[in-house]
Structure formats: structure tokens, C-alpha cells
């Protein structure tokens, strides 16, 4: 009997402890809301709620969004209240909600290839009237504006430009007598020397986010195959199996196999790890997207901020223009076709499509708010450190886009299944299939998508 009593106490103890642990771990999954109460009634009385779901940004960035977007909008009028929910699984949540005819009023998406199926299915609102009322076509970079159209009508605008280039640690380059490379030979020579010294050639990785692979697929398509070849392939005028595209894929595989992409640690590093390694001087370079500026703020702080530099990626094909940028976007903003507050959603997106918003957000959150306006006409002299460096990079990209010197980010311009094939480019890197086999599959998949009208509008590059 005594033993039974002891056992019963132990079981109670175990049960309570396990419940405690489970409850604690469940707490980690709860989404946060930018609104202090997370409700429409917070100080708003009769106000109608305008909802927007966003990815699970760090708390300081959530605070920035609240200070620059949410609070000023809510204070500017008394009819609506903007509520932003930060969700770690926003992509999946949006997909499921839209499919069910639900979801937020302002729809966060992963880009034009995401938008096309939802627009065709009538889940997203046609934004032509909103665009005309706010003069977006005159304000927004033409190739970016076009990329948000489906069958000639606007369905989305990106929140930010995103391109690929080289982040470098100025101190590491100076210590080793290296200068920022402008040719592929110079770049490879520095990386070889770095590896010989026991450093990483460059740092990056797809830990936790396999689509990082497409950054390097896009990079080599732009700088090895060239914008014209990719444009022609995306418009069906050139086969994906053409020699220039195959050479680009093979060049990316050569880089991976030489260990230029962090070697075997590629799958064990995420952007935070990689930027930390760059800041620690364990690599001269981080080759990646400009949105990485937002991660760099944690590691290049104070005086160290001056140590981070950003330069365009050099061309593998010497006949291409320099500097050349891969044109991409971080995310897209659309209006839910089932929203009851479409006008308010339009007005909020309009607030986000200004050079003033670009500068205000970049001042506190560099890397994610390179609003795709044609030019920056507001005073940005107050920006310092990484914010100034990012703004300078964005200004260079805007100039390159205006001149037509841009390639195509797979996430922005490729239809979904074709994009997925380029995310799986690591099959070539790791030698489980050849570049020609991969591209034959791409050709088949792309042809199906082209025939199904799933390819977004492809802006022409400069000749």
C-alpha cells in the first residue's frame, strides 16, 4: 500500500512537470501583434480593423514598423485601425487562409510567382484603380511595377528591392592586402588565399531555409548566362538547355565543389551565423542578398559598422555590363478580394510606396525596406552606418535598373515549379545529377507553366 502511494505521488509529479514543460514550449508558437491589445478596439471605439500579416520579425523591427507605419496611420484618421500580426509561418498561413476565402486585408506574399495563381483564382483584388488614384505607375520602377501585373492588371507591389552582391569585411581585406574585387578572377584569387589561410572563402548557408539555394542559381544566371539569355528563356524564345545557361549552372557547381560557398558547412549556417563569421573575421566575404543588411545590424555595431562593405558581384561573362544587378524583391503586398476595407488597404500600401517611408524605415531597419521608387528625393543625410551603406546600395541598384542593367531573381520572375527546380540546384552541386539533366527537367516544367500562363511579365534588359 505504501509502495502504491509512493507511485501515485511520483505519477502526479511526473504529470505536472510534463504539463509544465509542454505549456512552456507551446508559448513559443504564439504569434505577436503590433497592436498593443491585438484588437480593433484598442482606443479606437467604432473603428474598422485593417489587418496585415507579416513574417516573424525580431522585436526591435516590430517596434520600428509600429512606430513608422502603424501608429502614424492610426493617428492620421479615425475610421480605421491597422493591426499587424507577426507570424513565423506567414507564407503557409496566407496560402491556407486565401484558399479558404479568408485571410488578412493586406496580403503579404513571396512575389509575383506567388501572386499569379491567387490573382487568376480571384482571391486578390485588382489594384488598377488604386494605382491610378495614387500615381504608382509614375513613381514605381517600371520593371518592378510590371512584375506585379497579371494579364495587364496590377495585383501586387513589392515592399522592397532585393539584389545579390558581395558583403565584405573591410578590416579583413586591409589586413591581408586585398582590394575589393571587380573581376571574377580577382574574387576567386582572394577566396583561394583565404581558404589556404584556414578561413572560409565566403560564408553563407541554407540552414532552416532551403530556398537560399536560389540566390546562387540567380547569381550565376545573371552574371554567367547574362540577362538577355535568361530573358529569352523566360519568354520561351531560348531553351533552358542552351549552352550559356548550362555553363552558368556548371559554374555554380564548380563554386560549391571548390568550397567557395562555405564548403560543407553550407547546410549548417543560416544568415545570422554567416554574418557573425564575417564580423569575426573568419571570412573575407558573404555573398548574398541585400536583405542581409538587417541581420548585419546585430554584429556590425557602433564603430564596427564602418567595417561592412557591399559591392556588386563581378561578371563571369566579361562581355556583360558592369555593374550588373540581379533584380528581385523581398515580398509583395496585395489586397484581399474578400476584404471589406479595400480603400483603407490601398491607402496603407500607398503610404509604404514612398521614398520617405524608405528612408524612415531604413534609418532603423536597414535591409528590408528598399521601396522600389524611381528615385529618392527626400533628405537622407541623417542616415549613418549600415543604414547609409544600404541606402547607397539601393541607390546604385535603382540607377542600374533605370539603365536596364539587371538580371532576374528566380523568386521574383520564375513561375513556381520552375523556381522550385532552381531551388533544387544542389543536386548538380553535389553531383547526384548533371547540369544538362537538371535543365532538361527545367525545360519540361517551364514549358508546362508557360502554356498555363503562369510566367509573370518579364521586363526586357538593356541590349
Amino acid at each position, binding site marked *: 500500500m505504501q509502495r502504491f502511494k509512493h507511485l501515485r505521488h511520483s505519477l502526479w509529479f511526473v504529470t505536472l512537470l510534463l504539463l509544465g514543460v509542454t505549456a512552456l514550449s507551446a508559448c513559443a508558437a504564439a504569434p505577436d501583434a503590433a497592436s498593443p491589445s491585438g484588437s480593433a478596439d484598442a482606443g479606437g471605439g467604432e473603428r474598422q480593423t485593417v489587418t496585415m500579416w507579416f513574417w516573424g520579425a525580431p522585436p526591435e523591427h516590430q517596434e520600428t514598423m509600429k512606430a513608422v507605419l502603424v501608429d502614424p496611420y492610426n493617428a492620421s484618421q479615425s475610421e480605421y485601425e491597422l493591426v499587424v500580426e507577426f507570424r513565423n509561418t506567414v*507564407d503557409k498561413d496566407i496560402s491556407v487562409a486565401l484558399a479558404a476565402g479568408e485571410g488578412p486585408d493586406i496580403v503579404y506574399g513571396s512575389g509575383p510567382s506567388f501572386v499569379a*495563381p491567387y490573382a487568376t*483564382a480571384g482571391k486578390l483584388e485588382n489594384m488598377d484603380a488604386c494605382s491610378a488614384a495614387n500615381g504608382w505607375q509614375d513613381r514605381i520602377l517600371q520593371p518592378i511595377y510590371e512584375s506585379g501585373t497579371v494579364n495587364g492588371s496590377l495585383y501586387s507591389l513589392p515592399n522592397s528591392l532585393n539584389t545579390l552582391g558581395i558583403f565584405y569585411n573591410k578590416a579583413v581585406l586591409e589586413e591581408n592586402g586585398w582590394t575589393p574585387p571587380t573581376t571574377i578572377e580577382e574574387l576567386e584569387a582572394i577566396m583561394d588565399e583565404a581558404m589556404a589561410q584556414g578561413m572560409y572563402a565566403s560564408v553563407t548557408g541554407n540552414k532552416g531555409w*532551403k530556398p537560399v539555394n536560389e540566390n546562387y542559381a540567380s547569381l550565376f544566371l545573371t552574371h554567367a548566362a547574362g540577362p538577355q539569355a535568361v530573358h529569352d528563356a523566360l519568354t520561351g524564345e531560348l531553351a533552358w538547355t542552351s549552352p550559356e545557361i548550362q555553363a552558368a549552372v556548371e559554374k555554380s557547381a564548380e563554386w560549391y565543389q571548390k568550397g567557395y560557398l562555405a564548403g560543407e*558547412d553550407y547546410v*549548417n549556417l543560416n544568415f545570422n551565423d554567416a554574418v557573425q563569421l564575417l564580423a569575426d573575421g573568419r571570412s573575407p566575404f558573404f555573398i548574398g542578398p541585400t536583405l542581409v543588411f538587417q541581420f548585419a545590424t546585430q554584429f556590425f555595431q557602433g564603430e564596427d559598422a564602418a567595417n561592412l562593405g557591399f559591392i556588386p558581384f563581378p561578371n563571369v561573362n566579361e562581355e556583360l555590363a558592369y555593374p550588373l544587378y540581379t533584380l528581385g524583391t523581398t515580398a509583395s503586398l496585395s489586397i484581399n478580394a474578400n476584404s471589406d476595407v479595400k480603400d483603407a488597404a490601398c491607402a496603407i500600401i500607398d503610404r509604404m510606396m514612398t521614398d520617405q517611408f524608405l528612408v524612415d524605415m531604413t534609418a532603423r531597419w536597414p535591409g528590408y525596406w528598399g521601396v522600389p521608387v524611381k528615385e529618392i528625393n527626400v533628405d537622407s543625410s541623417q542616415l549613418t552606418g549600415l543604414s547609409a551603406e544600404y541606402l547607397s546600395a539601393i541607390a546604385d541598384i535603382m540607377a542600374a535598373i533605370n539603365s536596364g542593367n539587371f538580371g532576374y531573381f528566380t523568386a521574383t520572375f520564375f513561375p513556381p515549379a520552375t523556381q*522550385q527546380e532552381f531551388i533544387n540546384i544542389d543536386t548538380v552541386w553535389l553531383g547526384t545529377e548533371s547540369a544538362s539533366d537538371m535543365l532538361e527537367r527545367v525545360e519540361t516544367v517551364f514549358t508546362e507553366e508557360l502554356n498555363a500562363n503562369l510566367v509573370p511579365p518579364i521586363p526586357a534588359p538593356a541590349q
Partner: protein
Amino acid sequence: MKSFRYYILLLPALLLSMSVVLIPGLLTAYISFTDWNGVSPQINWIGLGNFRAIFADNVFWKALGNNIRWTILFVTVPVFIGMLSAVLLLGRRINATLYQLIYLFPYVLAPITNALLWLNIIFNPLTGVIGFLRKIGLNVPAPLGNINTALYAVAAVDIWHYWGFLTVVYLASLRQTPMDQVEAAQAEGANGWQVFRYVYFPSILPTVLLMYVMIIIFSFLTFDYVYLLTGGGPAHATEMLSTYAYTLGFSTFQVGRASAVGLVMSMFGLIAAAFYTWLSRREITE
């Protein structure tokens, strides 16, 4: 009248089961014969087109092979560890509950927590065990980065989280063995192995078989740890039918094909469940 009352009592469970299992299951079966993209109101019947497409895709066969390897790993390694630790705990008079708690701890944590623990504390080349071993001069390769070891590295994490659960289940079952049989065997001079083989094991066999069936079903549905640790990479080395279906459904908008993969997955679970039902009925009739 009496049987009518039984049906009424069954109704809540039947309705629940139909709404969360049967109707979605039938819809999935229907969608697998269409070209539905998950959002469009237009759904076209394409017959066996999705099945032909997935059977012609090397990634599908790679994923199926990985699921089979995964199943073999899970019906051996955690079962052996779980059984061994349960038998060892059976003899302990003190602290057996504490050990169970420690073993069960990873099982009650969310998969994301366990995955992050392993990614950051074990596999991380900066702050993890791998990084530490490299710092002291050992040239340790990255287990998740190599196509020959990635599947085993992911399975190691899932097994680490799972074997404690098996220990608790086996131990509970071992404790149900009639003590008079154990004592009789010991009195007859049976050694430890013989007591286990001829007394304990026959007693817990139904539990062992049930767990085998559950493991086989879960092995063909496995998703969380693979998705969190590698996303199916590198180069599809850890691709499972579930991650393959997820990519088709959520990344490439090919929900019809994803449903076809889902049906194939269900088929393996169904075979395992049918086998278990047959086994249970045979046991009853015997």
C-alpha cells in the same frame, strides 16, 4: 430498439470521425485525379495524370526509398534501445520514475525546440559540438551536409526524441507480466535472458506488435524533423514522401499531385493497420 440506442450512442464519434477523417480523405482521393492548384475554382479531371507524373519523377522514388530506410531504422534502433532500457529499469526499485521522466523529456518538447537544440548545440560549426571538435583540431565533417550521412543525422535526432517514449510504453507493459510466472521461472533456474525470452517477451508481445505498427505508420508520415533540419536536402538526400508532397502543395501549387503522393503514403499506413487488425483478430480467435 436496443441496437438503435447503440447507434445513437455511436453517432458523436462517427460524426467527428467523418468530418475530420473520412470527408477530407475522400476529397484528397478525388483531388488526386484533378489538376487543382489549391486556390482556383476551376478543377479539371485528369484521370491518372498525377500518378503518372509522380511515378516518372526520380524525386518520388528517392523519397519512397528514404521512407523505407527510415522505417527500417525506426523498427530497429529505438526499439532495441527502448526495450533494453525498459528491462534495465524493471529491475530498479529506486528512481525508476525519475529515469522515465528524463527519458521522456525530449518526447514532450515541441519538434522545433528539439530541432533547434540539435542545430545549435550539436551541428553548429560555430557554437556546437562540431565547432568545438574542430577547434581542438579534429577534422569533423558536417553530418547534415553530406548526402551519405544526412539521413542518418536527421534520424538520430528523431530517434533521440522518440526512444524514451518506447521505454515508458515497454516498461508499463513489462510490469503487467504476472509475477508468479516470473518467480516460477526463476525458481526453475532460468537465467535473466531466459526469463525475458520465455516469460516477459510473450507477455508484452501484443504491445510490441502494436508499437511496430504505429512506428511503420508514423515512419511513412514523418515530416517535422526532416523539414526543420534539412528541408529534404541536401540534393534530396533526406527527401521524404511528406516533404515532397508539401513542396508540391505549398511551393509549386500542384495540389493534385500532392494529393496523389498523400494517397501513396496512406496506402502504406493502411497496409500496416490492416496487418495489425488481422493479427489482433487471429489473437482473439486463438
